[in-house]
């Protein structure tokens, strides 16, 4: 069963030169993209920066509207984990308020929120005294754990992970990836895992979609795409990290 189905999504951003002139051209961020994500599975979305990966994630989340095409979701319980945990946590909020935001918006009672927050901190292995602190008092990896805790708290069925480990040290990356996998298994969540890092995607995703210039050029089971890539762009991407992959 598919959790997400995107059908022929198009999104063009006008390029403006000057204040009064109309669009000088269009940046085709997404040019007819169709993907499906199976329930409980992870789809890895790879491609170089600027190829439209993030735009697709935001369209699935409903933050931006596509120009044409359809997104069919099996759930409305969505969550997101962003690349830069500095930018994704409100610097003026204590961790307690960051974590309870989604629950307050879901109109949960105060007592239940308190208990859930504590459990979530245990889940991402952060100490309870983190609650009274502000995001800037944590390291990058710890902040990403806070972002993961916030995402898990609202019990989402689909999580868009937009380069969740790209800004972290390599040793921390693995910890966070394992945490994400662990949580996915425990709560049977579906992931859209966006990354430019093929090693990370191989670690995380059962299926993979390769994107170039706003189009999906290749998709299929991760193992198959990695062992016998059919599109030249996939081959280039793979050969650039070949030494490490093999």
């Amino acid at each position, binding site marked *: 069963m598919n959790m997400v189905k995107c059908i022929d999504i198009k999104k063009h951003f006008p390029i403006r030169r000057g204040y009064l002139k109309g669009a000088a051209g269009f940046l085709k961020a997404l040019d007819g993209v169709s993907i499906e994500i199976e329930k409980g599975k992870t789809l890895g979305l790879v491609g170089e920066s600027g190829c439209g990966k993030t735009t697709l994630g935001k369209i699935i989340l*409903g933050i931006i509207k596509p120009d044409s095409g359809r997104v069919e979701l099996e759930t409305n319980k*969505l969550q*997101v984990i962003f690349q830069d945990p500095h930018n*994704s946590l*409100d610097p*003026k909020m204590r961790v307690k308020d960051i974590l309870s935001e*989604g629950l307050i918006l879901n109109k949960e009672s105060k007592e239940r929120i308190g208990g859930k927050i504590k459990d979530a901190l245990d889940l991402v292995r952060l100490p309870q005294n983190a609650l009274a602190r502000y995001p800037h008092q944590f390291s990058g990896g710890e902040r990403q754990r806070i972002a993961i805790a916030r995402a898990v708290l609202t019990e989402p069925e689909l999580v868009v992970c937009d380069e969740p480990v790209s800004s972290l040290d390599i040793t921390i990356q693995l910890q966070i990836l394992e945490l994400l996998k662990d949580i996915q298994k425990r709560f049977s969540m579906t992931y859209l895992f966006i990354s430019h890092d093929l090693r990370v995607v191989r670690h995380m995703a059962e299926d993979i979609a390769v994107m170039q210039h706003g189009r999906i050029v290749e998709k299929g089971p991760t193992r198959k795409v990695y062992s016998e890539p059919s599109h030249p762009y996939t081959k280039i991407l793979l050969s650039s990290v070949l030494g490490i992959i093999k």
Partner: protein
Amino acid sequence: MILDLIRNKMAFAGLLFIVLILLFALFAPAIATNDPSKVDASSILSAPSRDHIFGTDMLGRDIFSRIVYGSRISLSIGFIAVGIAVLIGIVFGSVSGYYGGRVDSAMMRFVDIMLCFPTFFLILAVIAVLEPSIFNIMVVIGATSWMGVARLVRAEVLTLKERDYVAAARVMGASDLWIITKHLIPNAIGPVLVSATLGVGGAILVESALSFLGIGVQPPTPSWGNILMDGKSTLGVAWWLTIYPGIFILLTVLAYNLLGEGLRDILEPRLKER
């Protein structure tokens, strides 16, 4: 932040003077040496002495006591006028910046229009039509000085609304009002605080100028501006009537400016030296 403030000598001096004036205003009855409205025919225009440290005016009223009581009026006008300006500015600026597009264009053109009026003459005209009460003065000063705050808040909101934590809140189902009040305004408040501090000095100055022209705070209520005005006709024979309130206005406005600039250096380092 408080440590930074103490380290910044000029800002700290400003803060100390502001605290002193605040104490004047709060404990006026204890600090004033005389009843500020008591007329004393036996000591008209007497020079500063031990009984009247700042001298007396042409009705024999004690200038020091009038200045102490006047600080209540001048400060509350400063605070409340700026409070009104900040409130309007924050609402206007955050709505304009958040919704963007045509709403933003229309609202910002309105700000441009408001900035075209020579504010002081606008205030003069409004006060001339309404009656010059303390309440009216506060409201009019506030209603004509919010544009800077609105522009500041809008500029902040324009960048803040692109932050990922705003997107995350939206994914969790937050409304526009929630995002504006919980995420955007708290993060935009730094520069507003600076501008408000500088604004209090400006508002006190406007009040003084209005009172000096006789359309501000009406006698016998003392304000620094109208004590100054009382002195202008006797400047040749009784300098203390003009000099002392003038010094208080000068020092207070200076103190707010120093504190405001100090806060700006601490809270908004990127705006330094601009």
